[in-house]
């Protein structure tokens, strides 16, 4: 039987080498090393041999088994590798079939400017206040020292809505009513800015749209002066526009501030750009907000957000902002 070992080894190796799949190899393993495999039978028969022969035969058998097992391991690895390779080939994808026009959302330029402005003012210690877009005539005008019949009302081209008595409800023409609401809701000191959507009964052109956006600022505290206003505008100018930009105030007229000013921004090339209105809050406005103008003084300022957005991206027609054209939106 020992003399058959070589033959058994040869046939086991042949079976292993002949297996083409891992399943086939498992069969070859059973056939060469399983319970009824010739080598296993030989092993069982070892016991019947004389002691000195048994030792030698056992050694020979172990060597054969080791060789067969080694071959089996090698073949297993070989076939596993081949099968993995075949599977990877079968899994092939043409990744260029994936549509290239992935959808990326673009924030609206007005929102970009809006949030950037909020961040600048938050950094300067302001909180962000809000108010309704449909407003009472009182909050939009009367409380801001623009009583009925005041000629300034004409200049606002107000859109009124059918709600309540005629003329009582309008779409706010500026963000200034938020000043009133904030003063009525909160005790001073107050440091707020109020970005928001405003409405004018304006025929659209390159520099006007009936719906646009403003940012309003209000600071109420003891001893607020024109210098605080100028300093705040200057600090804002430098942080929003960057180093090299400066601001100036020059006298102007608004019913809700006294003294009033227009503020201009000087660009690094030296040219001036009219940006917005500002001033010391009129005592009548403070009173409408429930604040004693003898105890507190205040400044307010306001400017258009859309124009800043348009300037930043060199958009020369404000109507473009509201076309909702994807080719426009996706540029920014």
């Amino acid at each position, binding site marked *: 039987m020992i003399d058959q070992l070589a033959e058994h080894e040869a046939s086991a190796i042949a079976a292993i080498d002949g297996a083409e799949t891992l399943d086939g190899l498992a069969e070859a393993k059973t056939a060469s090393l399983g319970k009824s495999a010739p080598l296993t039978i030989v092993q069982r028969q070892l016991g019947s041999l004389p002691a000195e022969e048994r030792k030698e035969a056992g050694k020979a058998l172990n060597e054969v088994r080791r060789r067969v097992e080694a071959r089996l391991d090698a073949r297993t690895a070989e076939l596993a590798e081949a099968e993995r390779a075949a599977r990877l080939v079968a899994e092939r994808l043409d990744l260029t079939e994936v549509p290239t026009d992935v959808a990326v*959302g673009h924030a609206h330029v007005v929102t970009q400017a809006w*949030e950037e402005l909020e961040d600048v003012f*938050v950094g300067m210690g302001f909180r962000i206040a809000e108010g309704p877009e449909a407003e009472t005539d009182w909050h939009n005008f009367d409380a801001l020292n623009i009583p009925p019949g005041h*000629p300034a009302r004409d200049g606002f081209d107000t859109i009124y*809505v059918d709600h309540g008595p005629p003329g009582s409800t309008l779409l706010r023409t500026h963000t200034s009513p938020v000043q009133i609401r904030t003063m009525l809701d909160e005790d001073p*000191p107050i440091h707020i800015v109020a970005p928001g959507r405003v409405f004018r009964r304006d025929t659209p052109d390159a520099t006007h749209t009936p719906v646009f956006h403003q940012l309003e600022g209000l600071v109420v505290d003891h001893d607020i002066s024109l210098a605080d206003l100028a300093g705040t505008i200057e600090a804002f100018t430098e942080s929003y526009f960057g180093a090299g930009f400066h601001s100036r105030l020059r006298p102007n007229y608004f019913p809700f501030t006294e003294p009033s000013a227009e503020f201009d921004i000087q660009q690094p090339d030296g040219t001036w750009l009219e940006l917005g209105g500002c001033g010391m809050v009129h005592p009548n406005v403070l009173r409408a907000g429930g604040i004693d103008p003898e105890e507190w003084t205040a400044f307010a300022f306001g400017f258009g957000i859309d124009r800043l957005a348009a300037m930043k991206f060199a958009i020369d027609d404000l109507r473009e902002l509201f076309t909702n*054209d994807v080719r426009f*939106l*996706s540029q920014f």
Partner: protein
Amino acid sequence: MKVLLSWMREFAPIDGEPSFLAEAMTDLGMVVESVTTTGPSWEGIVVAKVLALRPHPEADRIQLVDVDAGDGEPLQICCGAFNMAVGDLVPLATVGTTMPGGLEIGRRKLRGQWSNGMICSAAELELGEDAEGILVLEPDLTVGADLAGALGAESDVLFDLDIEGNRPDALSVVGVTRDLAARLGVPFSLPTPTFSEVEPSTAAQASVDIQAPELCSRFGIRVLDNVSIGASPRWLASRLTAAGMRPINSIVDISNYVMLELGQPNHTYDLGRVPEGRLGVRMARDGETLVTLDDVQRRLTPEDGVITNGSDEPIGLAGVMGGASTEISDSTTRVLLEAAVWDRMTIARTSRRLNLRSEASTRFERGVDPFGIERALDRFVELAGEICGAKVATGSVVAVGGLAEPLSVPVRTARMNKILNLSLTAAEMAALLDPIGFSSTPTDDGLMVAVPSWRPDCEIEEDIAEEIGRHHGYDKSGTRVPTPTQAGALTRDQRARRRVRRTLLGDGYSEAMPMPFLAPDDLAMAGLDAAGISLANPLVAEESVLRTSLLPGLLKAVARNQSHRIDTVRLYELGRVWQPSDDELPNEYELVAAIGSGHGPTGTVERPETAAEAGVRSLYRMAAELGLRGLAVVNADVPGLHPTRAAEVRFRGNVIGSVGEVDPRVLENYGVAGRASWFELEVAPILAAMATPARYEPVSLYPSSDVDLAFVTPDDVAATDVAKTIEKAGGGLIRSVRLFDVFRSAQLGAGHRSLAYQVRLQADDRTLTDEEVADIRRRCIDEVARAHGAELRG
């Protein structure tokens, strides 16, 4: 307001570079929008004398003019005008001149005759409108002299100023000059008009009766006789032209000149057409009519003020426009001159109602100096005497109506300095105020400041602060940054709103900003309740209703993009809508909506996701990213959405929006091709949920077991409902229920499908035994069968 430097110099010795002066005026709040150097570009134009006039041998419409251009030699010119005589002085543009209008003058032949230059009309010199004839010059000029020098028409500077509504005084040359002179520290003075008067007096010939004192504060008249009306002298016409007014005739021009100079609008009547010279002032009666100067019959209301004649008939619309019946004509010789000051609101109302805005009404609306009347009357008659040869009746008559008391404002030095961040003394403040007409007397704590009658805008201490600041210079207040007493921050809701926006951007939706106004049928076309709030005064009907949903606006946006052949459109909007309410204001709230058309970011070319699925997926993505646990989609009929591909979005017990596919009929109404995914949610509940931070739940350390269950369920049973039933049956031991397969076949039967769920079981405190797992499995199967009539698939 356009102001000539030469005109200003009549009241103050104003000097300096135009740019410097412009800056000074801008710094005073009279913003200079442009500075133009005017006056004549008349180089090459000289004074020439007509030596002879000869007919042109070949032409009737031109004649030959021999002129002396200064060298004594006759120079032949062909000329198309015939209004000059031998000996007249005329302007001659010599060969080589470029005319103000750009025309170059050369030596050329006209019908065979040489013309060695051009004799000019007023229009050609841009001196006036008259293009009919040659401008015949005053006879005392020097022949051969430069025209500009000879006429004293040196170049001038025209400032175009933007005057704010609170500065009616600056709608006049003297007002602007007063302010500028104060800033420059040069003296300002108003010369007293000089003229001689003749009897009978004004009072003997005319009278005024103010019956409506609230309408008119002061009404002054003067009478002029022997008035001869003609063209205005050149200096007057050119100043009016520079100021933007058209010269008409001497009387009208003087009227305008006085208004521009002093800011007092005035009016002239043909005294012969005002019986006994009697004028009255009252409010109009309802239905009364008046033919105004523009020959339009106006129907008046009791809100309009009128000037009446002695028979109580309206002959003028107060402060807005005169009447036709008393209009000055070429034959008028007796003129009744009016200068009055009217109630601002009345004038504003009337001019607005009749859409009649004039230089006069603009000034009256803002407030005219009631004590400037006498000076305006006097200045008018002074000019009329010089120009029209008018004889001025002695004295004026001034009737007084409702006149406000002169105002004095107490000003506290400390308060002024606090507002302006200055440290001026009361005397320094007084010195700033005095040159602009505010006289002050010292008080214990500051000044008592008398407000000049031409500054109706100044009523309180702060108004005086502006005057002090303006003339001292705003920049002197310095800069200081106030110190807030609390940290700047966005509110929780504001931060959350930004996250909502980021989430949608991350899902490929760009931000749209449609107009919030809709056409009246937009809502109905979108399948929505048409009860939007209307605008009371819309600009156009297409934008006359406030939106109640973001759907119409976003549909229009998609349609617009598709019309430009952009098929893949993903847009979101976060904006406000309005619903009617019984409260003080409409019910205004925020919605966020996303619309998608074309192929979305998920799916492939082979199997694109349906629009409805895309909408739901975007919704879930947003809910997951924002931590909106428990947000549920419940199949439902939703107005505007596809009848069988729509669902309500429920969150914490409320319906907060909808999701699915837009109704194909709605898409058709809006001209949108293909299909469109959609969801719309109320923002407030989302922000509220985001305000509550998630609560930590300990992670179980024990092993979990998965059970797969497939049920054959009728189509009308929602997959999420089955999942919910399974979860409930698990008695708290179910960690997750995941739908992993949906399968239909003939074998399952029409109207049924198999829903396969992987159910993960896990306890926090122990390993579940096989028996427990089997028990839960059983309970799930029974419960689903009971609740949905669904059988476990074999």
